């Protein structure tokens, strides 16, 4: 029983990691309609920035307040300078994000020469032990942050004008444009927000892993599955999808075989897609259901 509960806890905490990485990706996916292949590399970049700040004596839980705004600005620049000029060529946008992935990986590689870096402060050793249930402190923080971000983002999307504009664009971008919403500015804001969330993820995940320029790729495969499973453009979808994938992975890894866990959750993922093509909580936009052609 204790083992079962420990796996449950580790699955929930892993789900927190997946949720945190996926929320930003899903926001961009749902609103800007871009599969941002470089999202994992944004996380990687933020991890290295956090590592760099730690060498200056700034711990990751302070660094997050520097790294996230920096990544926001970085996201603004990428959307404005790289993606917006390609707006009418969605295929080219995908290639551009892929190019960005290669560029970021190699730039970091050139700077660090690929040496594995670790940020191991005293906090990374904190373990919460409750009647034999063990949870690593840094992972609990990630989970709490993912939950808080999901709630805050929901409030933002439902209670503010900017958030409502984003939701309008998700549903029907042509209609939104006709209502006077500046779609380009919404894209800009969303992409920047998405990369700021990658910044938060990077800062909070940095104490858990040994950094390598390729670490972004480790997160992103799962994050794509989470996004599709949870539902396109849906914040609670990404959060719940992340938890679902984390739990599936933990239980499959322990009770079946750690080497097969990815195969198992991909099977479940395909099954969900067959039953619910728009994901658990997703609602297809007007373009997807064929009510309207893609906006020019």
């Amino acid at each position, binding site marked *: 029983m204790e*083992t079962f509960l*420990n*796996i449950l806890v*580790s699955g929930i905490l*892993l789900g927190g*990691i*997946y949720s945190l990485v996926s929320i930003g990706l899903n926001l961009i996916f749902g609103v800007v309609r871009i599969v941002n292949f470089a999202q994992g590399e944004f996380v990687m970049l933020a991890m290295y920035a956090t590592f760099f700040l730690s060498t200056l004596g700034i711990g990751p839980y302070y660094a997050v307040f520097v790294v996230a705004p920096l990544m926001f600005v970085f996201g603004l620049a990428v959307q404005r300078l790289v993606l917006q000029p390609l707006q009418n060529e969605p295929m080219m946008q995908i290639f551009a994000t892929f190019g960005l992935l290669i560029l970021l990986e190699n730039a970091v*590689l*050139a700077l660090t*020469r*690929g*040496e*594995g*870096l*670790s940020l*191991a402060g005293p906090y*990374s*050793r904190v*373990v919460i*032990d409750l009647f034999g249930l*063990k*949870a*690593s402190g840094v992972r609990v923080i990630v989970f709490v942050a993912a939950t808080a971000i999901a709630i805050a983002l929901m409030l933002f999307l439902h209670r503010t004008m900017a958030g409502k504009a984003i939701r309008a664009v998700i549903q029907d971008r042509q209609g939104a444009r006709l209502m006077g919403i500046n779609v380009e500015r919404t894209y800009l804001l969303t992409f920047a927000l998405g990369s700021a969330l990658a910044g938060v993820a990077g800062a909070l995940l940095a104490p*858990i*892993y*040994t950094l*390598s*320029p*390729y*670490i972004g*790729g*480790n*997160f992103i495969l*799962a994050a794509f599955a989470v996004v599709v499973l949870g539902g396109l453009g849906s914040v609670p979808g990404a959060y719940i999808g992340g938890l679902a994938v*984390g739990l599936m*992975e*933990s239980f499959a*890894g*322990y009770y079946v*075989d*750690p*080497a097969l*866990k*990815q195969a198992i959750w991909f099977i479940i993922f395909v099954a969900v897609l067959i039953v619910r093509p728009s994901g658990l909580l997703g609602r297809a936009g007007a373009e997807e259901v064929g009510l309207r052609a893609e906006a020019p």
Partner: protein
Amino acid sequence: MRTVLERWLFTAFAITLSVPALAQSGPIRIGAINPYSGPMALYGDEVSRGYQLAIDEANAKGGVLGRKIELIRGDAGNPQQGITAAEKLATQDNVDIFVGTYVSAVSNAASDTALRYSKLYWDTNALAADLTERGLPNFVRSGPYARSFADISVNGTKELLAPALGKSVKDLKVWIEHEDSIYGTSIAQRQKALLEKDGAKVVGVGAHNFRAIDLTDSILRAKGAAPDVWINTGYVPDGNLLLRTMRDQGFKPPAVMLVGTGDTPETLDALGADYLNGITVVGYPRPDQTETFGPGAAAYLAAYKKKYDRDPIAPQGMTAYVGMQILLEAVAAAGSTDMEKVRAAAAKMDKPAKSYATGFGVKFDQQFQNERAFPTVVQWQSGKVVTVYPKEAAQPGVKLISLQRQ
């Protein structure tokens, strides 16, 4: 007109004839294929530093076959670059011999290319078993490979860990963890077979992906089996994540042994000196071993510090250094750099173990794998790695410290 043409042809012919003659009197050119840029550059550089130190040593004594030796680098981090680098070294730099390679896949492709130019490929550092098993007629490996790492991890478990735990091998429960590519899998299979032959109980074999985000499941499975010894073969990121998870989950096996990686500052930074205390690592022989086991190890360390003004980055350099020494001896014995003649001379070499700085001897098997090249076992002690096995390699006064995880 005709005479002019004749004279021109004659001159051209004479030049063609004189080129090999010139090459014979010039330096012996050795092309070193390794990653010098990209993620593995650090180790590629280190391996080539080892070559350079052996070459400096030989040149100081007047070179080999009366010729100086020159090292030319070819940068390759993947198989495709390996082919390109080998072609460039063969055609533009006219190298006589190839050496390498920190990456097995690069060695595989580059040695194939070298064969097309009928050049010897002398490997010092690649680990994959299939490199020698291919039976390529230009290939020789002077250093240890995957199988030697598996063998030493098992010998170390039996002769070092079991006595320290106060158990006989037959009572020993072992968990074998490995990353799930051919590298980790082939080592784990051999470990299991050898341990079971000796009567040890292999309570579980766990495979994991080295890029996994979470390895709690792997650690909980091992914890449930309550092994005396937990052995892991993998890379740096997954090895670090496993140890961190082990600490978080309160899994404290009486002994931990890592194979291949885990003996560098990359692991020290991630886990800290306190936690690593007592963990053993099977790795390349290190310069801190005794002179009786590795004659010349101290001289290597001194020469390295003098030339590069720092401590060696990784132990791979010393294995490369010894590999180059063996190569130059084979060339001297062959009286040529021709691949068949050098291989024939290498086949006749017979040196007992403990002949070189790494503790290696020389005896090549049918597939030109050196049978007397082995890794050693080190232990983390207060943030430093100390050679502890084989016993004669350990400095006097060095003792195995408490193995139990704290």
